[in-house]
């Protein structure tokens, strides 16, 4: 059914169609509208057979989901940013225990300085925690990925994060196609836990494992993630059969087959990039895009196949690995090891900084003419950072970076000597 609604509401509708049995809710922008909508559905009785629990922290949210899932219930929660970091210990635990929890991450920057707007710093910080990470490009895809996520999680007994850009997607009102309940029921079988806390067959879950077996347990976690590389395309095909549209998969190219320069990105910025690519194509530049939908497990082969024939690859990253630069670019370089493809990392859009078409076009043109550095920062105000660095060179002083910058810009100049 076609409807016009907020991205968060669309995700809530998708999650409800998956018939979750335990939902843990803790508010954090920009995720909050999702659990608010689900809470209303549970309380009004529209979503039956579900416990909606208002927990006291994100750490508790993930912990309640762990308990519920281990006791055989389909469990869901949503978070963002600081909330994702606060549940980190439980994230690793859920993955280590093989509990198929599904969680929405409404991607948002991590402080300090505190910032509520979108980038991918939160999800990228958890790329190695053992969760599958899927990134949505549109609200429709965010909706669809949740339905695929439950299937994938329960098939492989691995938790899945569905990442969607905070505000840009969560708060955008768009037309979405809400599936019928019978379609979702046909696609998503009931949760059949392999091991469950059952008084008739008592098991001990979460035992201490020493050096004699820890390596093997970790290897198996990796092996299961790698199996997802086969399942994800299968489930995307199965999804198209039932729902009649494409969603998910590992990677998706756009005008990339014959491209000499390919921009790689994740999430909603792909739409803007495609517009830019169309303009550049009209100007005679053979540019293309590769969208990464599945970031963990890393689709090494698919990325290699898509990029090996390009001359230049520009990875547009909404996160910064301080001390090295680009996280996605590092992964792309691994995939292209042995191929003569120049890979550039361009950090962009941190903390909600707008990524404009003109800046993207200039970035691609720089890639074409060879003037793009290995690590670039899109629309960075060089004057501000140079002045801050110069000040720090002059006077040895410790303290928050943001206040120095603010002083420079003059926002609180009156209050800082």
């Amino acid at each position, binding site marked *: 059914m076609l409807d016009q609604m907020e991205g968060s509401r669309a995700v809530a509708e998708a999650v409800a169609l998956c018939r979750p049995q335990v939902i843990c809710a803790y508010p954090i922008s920009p995720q909050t509208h999702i659990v608010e909508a689900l809470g209303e559905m549970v309380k009004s009785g529209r979503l039956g057979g579900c416990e909606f629990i208002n927990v006291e922290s994100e750490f*508790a949210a993930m912990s309640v989901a762990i308990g519920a899932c*281990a*006791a055989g219930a389909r469990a869901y929660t949503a978070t963002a940013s600081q909330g994702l970091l606060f549940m980190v210990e439980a994230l690793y635990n859920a993955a280590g225990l093989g509990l198929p929890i599904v969680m929405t991450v409404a991607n948002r920057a991590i402080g300090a300085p505190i910032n509520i707007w979108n980038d991918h710093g939160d999800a990228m910080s958890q790329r190695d925690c053992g969760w599958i990470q899927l990134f949505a490009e549109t609200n429709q895809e965010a909706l669809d990925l949740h339905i695929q996520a439950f299937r994938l999680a329960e098939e492989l007994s691995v938790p899945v994060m569905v990442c969607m850009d905070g505000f840009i997607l969560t708060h955008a009102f768009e037309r979405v196609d809400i599936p019928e309940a019978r379609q979702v029921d046909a696609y998503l079988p009931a949760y059949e836990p392999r091991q469950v806390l059952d008084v008739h067959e008592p098991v001990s879950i979460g035992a201490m494992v020493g050096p004699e077996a820890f390596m093997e347990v970790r290897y198996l976690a990796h092996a299961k993630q790698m199996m997802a590389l086969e399942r994800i395309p299968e489930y995307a095909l199965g999804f198209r059969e039932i729902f009649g549209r494409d969603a998910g998969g590992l990677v998706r190219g756009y005008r990339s087959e014959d491209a000499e320069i390919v921009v790689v990105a994740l999430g909603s910025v792909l739409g803007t990039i495609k517009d830019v690519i169309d303009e550049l194509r009209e100007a005679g530049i053979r540019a293309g895009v590769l969208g990464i939908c599945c970031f963990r497990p890393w689709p090494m082969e698919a990325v290699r196949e898509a990029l090996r024939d390009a001359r230049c690859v520009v990875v547009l990253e909404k996160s910064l690995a301080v001390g090295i630069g680009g996280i996605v670019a590092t992964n792309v370089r691994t995939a292209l090891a042995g191929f003569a493809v120049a890979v550039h990392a361009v950090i962009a859009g941190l903390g909600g900084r707008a990524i404009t078409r003109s800046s993207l076009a200039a970035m691609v043109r720089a890639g074409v003419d060879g003037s793009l550095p290995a690590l670039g920062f899109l629309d960075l105000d060089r004057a501000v950072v140079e002045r801050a660095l110069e000040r720090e060179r002059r006077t040895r002083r410790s303290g928050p970076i943001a206040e120095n910058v603010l002083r420079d810009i003059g926002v609180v100049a009156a209050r800082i000597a």
Partner: protein
Amino acid sequence: MAFQPVKFYQTGTFTVGNRLLAPEERSVQADMARINSLNSGHRACQGCGEALGARYAIDAAMRSTGNRLIAANATGCLEVFSTPYPETSWQIPWIHSVFGNAAAVATGIAAALKVKGHAEVRVVAQGGDGGTTDIGFGCLSGMFERNDDVLYICYDNEAYMNTGVQRSSATPPGARTATTMAVGPQPGNCFGQGKDLPRIAMAHGIPYVATATVADLRDLEYKVARAMSFHGARYLHILVPCPVGWGHGSHETIRIARLARETGLFPVFEAEDGEVTGVSKIRKPVPVEEYLRPQKRFAHLFGRPPRIDIIAGLQEIADRNIRRYGLLDSTD
């Protein structure tokens, strides 16, 4: 108090056992068919109070629930010594997630059971004092506040024993731990800190809060059974001496626990809906010195010169407990 304690004073011994009791009054532990939830063969130290307390409590809970019980366990001694892969001592469904989330994991289990229509299966969460009063406190308070249908059991040995006896917020004043060293002008843990978790639990207004020690099996079992007669959040705080951390003989666990109660340092009581409804009376208060002296963690109080000021401070705490809970048995 709904529970009438059985007094064995006439025998002149503390270990008269069950033979003086009618079969229905006998303890769960005396039952040949007891479930032995925490089975033998685990790796607890000799004389471990926590191993004893856990078996007493979980066996009693199993009897109350007709063996329909699931446990969530915090990280700690109990978790480590009971489940070294690939072995387990637990005869019940059991899960360990991380250190600070046992109460929240239990909430999740209870929610799953409810939604799946298994209301007859009950849930306990358990942890040591570190996992309860410190790192697990947020999740515990949340579970209390929501009144989730979970019995949380804290096995309190008054420090982080699993990591090598470091101070927790349940460590008593004056006690030496690896992080409250017996040096300087104020040796051992300082006064005026720490949490009184049973009273904090009561302040949440949950249906049932109780304290117990491993010295009084019958009282402990009664409190578990009483706790399981309620739905909603319940809290049971059991004092479990640790021979290694406290520095007493492994054969003295029960005696030390009893002295903790008889001095008034560990008040044994129960409360419903935030109000105290019963206390275990002290027949004749024992001076705190008798409790402190056998424990090496207090040895620095009895050096030359002795720290009578610190001992007096501890006696004040005991006296205040006696006044606050009306622990003196005025009927004898």
